[in-house]
């Protein structure tokens, strides 16, 4: 079911947590809402769930206006960062709680709980239904929280930083599982995270937010390849942000108030000197250091007053180098 917000505004005192957000979240897709802390992404998700009452604007789920609807009646199940499992109930009771509320026939409850546990691949853990949340690992707890949410077969699944309490290894695994679960069920999912890499890897669409507004929205590849402004470019992992512009030959020159952005992986390092390369942005600099990162090296090149980071597979001696970046891989913002 398509979810849409129109001109959503929420103020906390002087702060505009949501400053007129208009955005559609396509039906059956996983949309990641991403941005630095304080950008309004959590406020957006909580207003979709009904925990935050917007000051202005509308929230639509399908054709239904849910702006003033109580959280209980929204049919949008939420997965919390803290898991929010009920510690005094077993895994079975946690999942069955909402099923019983919805008057699922007594005989069907166990089947539905089993089904939900299967969806999150917890059915293979023996006796998991009878355990209490604290007897499970963090990853298992988050899977139970996920099972609890999907067991009620909601129209919309809301995920609030569901992986940020897990350690890196498990985070990657659960991320893949969430993606697979969303694909299998075809549920409309909205996934809030501060991690741009997580957002891009998991989502059909990313919505980048900045100080209460949508900075850019689109397919991950699209947003990554053509960021609309310096904020989006920087946030999506641009390594080099210089206070610089380019002259007619494509040479990087210092410039106040203009920002030149490009990624370390798009830089080619050539011997210094010679005529300027065709159709590229370039600069001559001094290679000061190279750090081994496993998959390759990261070079630190002094260009004028700034240090540019460039990635390279093989080691180079220190000394003068020429940096060359394809023009379409650089972003210049005024």
């Amino acid at each position: 079911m398509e979810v849409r917000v129109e001109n959503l505004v929420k103020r906390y005192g002087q702060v505009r947590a949501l400053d007129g957000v208009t955005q559609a979240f396509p039906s059956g897709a996983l949309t990641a809402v991403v941005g630095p802390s304080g950008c309004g992404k959590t406020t957006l998700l909580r207003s979709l769930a009904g925990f935050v009452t917007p000051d202005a604007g509308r929230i639509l789920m399908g054709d239904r206006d849910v702006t003033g609807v109580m959280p209980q009646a929204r049919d949008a199940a939420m997965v919390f960062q803290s898991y929010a499992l009920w510690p005094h109930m077993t895994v079975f009771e946690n999942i069955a709680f909402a099923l019983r509320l919805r008057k699922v026939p007594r005989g069907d409850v166990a089947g539905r709980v089993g089904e939900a546990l299967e969806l999150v691949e917890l059915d293979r853990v023996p006796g998991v239904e009878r355990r209490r949340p604290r007897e499970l690992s963090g990853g298992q707890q988050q899977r139970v929280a996920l099972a609890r949410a999907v067991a009620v077969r909601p129209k919309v699944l809301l995920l609030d930083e569901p992986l940020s309490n897990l350690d890196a290894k498990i985070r990657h695994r659960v991320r893949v599982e969430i993606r697979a679960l969303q694909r299998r069920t075809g549920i409309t999912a909205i996934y809030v995270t501060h991690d741009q890499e997580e957002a891009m890897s998991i989502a059909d669409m990313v919505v980048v937010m900045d100080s209460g507004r949508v900075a850019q929205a689109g397919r991950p590849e699209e947003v990554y390849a053509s960021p609309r402004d310096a904020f989006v470019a920087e946030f999506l992992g641009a390594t080099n942000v210089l206070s610089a512009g380019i002259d007619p030959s494509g040479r990087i020159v210092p410039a106040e108030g203009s920002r030149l952005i490009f990624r370390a992986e798009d830089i080619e390092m050539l011997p210094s000197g010679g005529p300027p390369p065709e159709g590229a942005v370039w600069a001559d600099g001094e290679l000061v250091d190279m750090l081994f990162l496993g998959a390759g090296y990261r070079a630190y090149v002094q260009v004028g007053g700034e240090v540019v980071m460039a990635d390279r597979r093989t080691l180079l001696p220190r000394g003068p180098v020429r940096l060359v970046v394809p023009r379409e891989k650089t972003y210049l913002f005024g």
Partner: protein
Amino acid sequence: MEGRRAPGSKPQARGRGPRGLGAIIGRTALVAILLAVIVGPLLGLVLWSVAERWYWPAVFPQQIGTKYWARITQGDLLGALTRGVSIALVTTAAALVTSVPIAYGAARARLPLGPVVLMLFLLPQAFPQLPVFASAAVLFYRWNLAGTFLGVVLIHLVGGLVYSVWTMTAVFRAIGEEIEEAAINLGASFTRTFFRITLPLALPGVVASSILVFIYSLDEFTGTLLVGAPYVTTLPVYMYTASLGYELQIASVTALVLMIPGVVLLVAMERFLRAEYLAFFGRL
């Protein structure tokens, strides 16, 4: 290298000797002082409670017996005990019913002027007890509450509510809001969420806080004397009257009897009460 390091570690091991001895002496001294402070007065009480004849300058009682202990089964002491326990039970129940909604409201910041209300409950503790209770007693006389069971319960609530409201606020605050939101999000009404999720999780803290109030009420003296005496006498007041009449034996027996529920309940409470509940005290 290895060979040189091994002998080097020896003085360290030897050095542990004197330090260990010092620690042992220190610890023994500490335990001895604690024992003297705690057990000393208790021993005095025990001694007095069995002294049938004890005149100066004898170090120990001249005649020992259980005559005064037998008084427990007699009317006045037993009456004071049962009255005190019933007052404490009613006070605890009343404090519970009042505190749970106030504390929950304050903890979730849904109570208008929550911090002010919390402060208000702390206020009686900010002043010396005697004038507070004395002026309350004057009011109680005007309202015909003096010398009544209800009057004593009310004066106990003045002090007891401080404990229950503040500890329960901490208890409810310790329960994450997301835990409730998860239930609401899945369709549970606010009432159902409170009774099925919040209250069961708060139960240990609520029990601990009730025990605090119960012990407070059972041991409360000033207010009970000013409002209740001579018609409503609890054990502390009884003990006071007994020692005024130089019946130190009766006072000692009463004190020992009074200690039993306190010690038992405190041990029980220790299982329920978490340090963070008390750490919250006085913070808004």
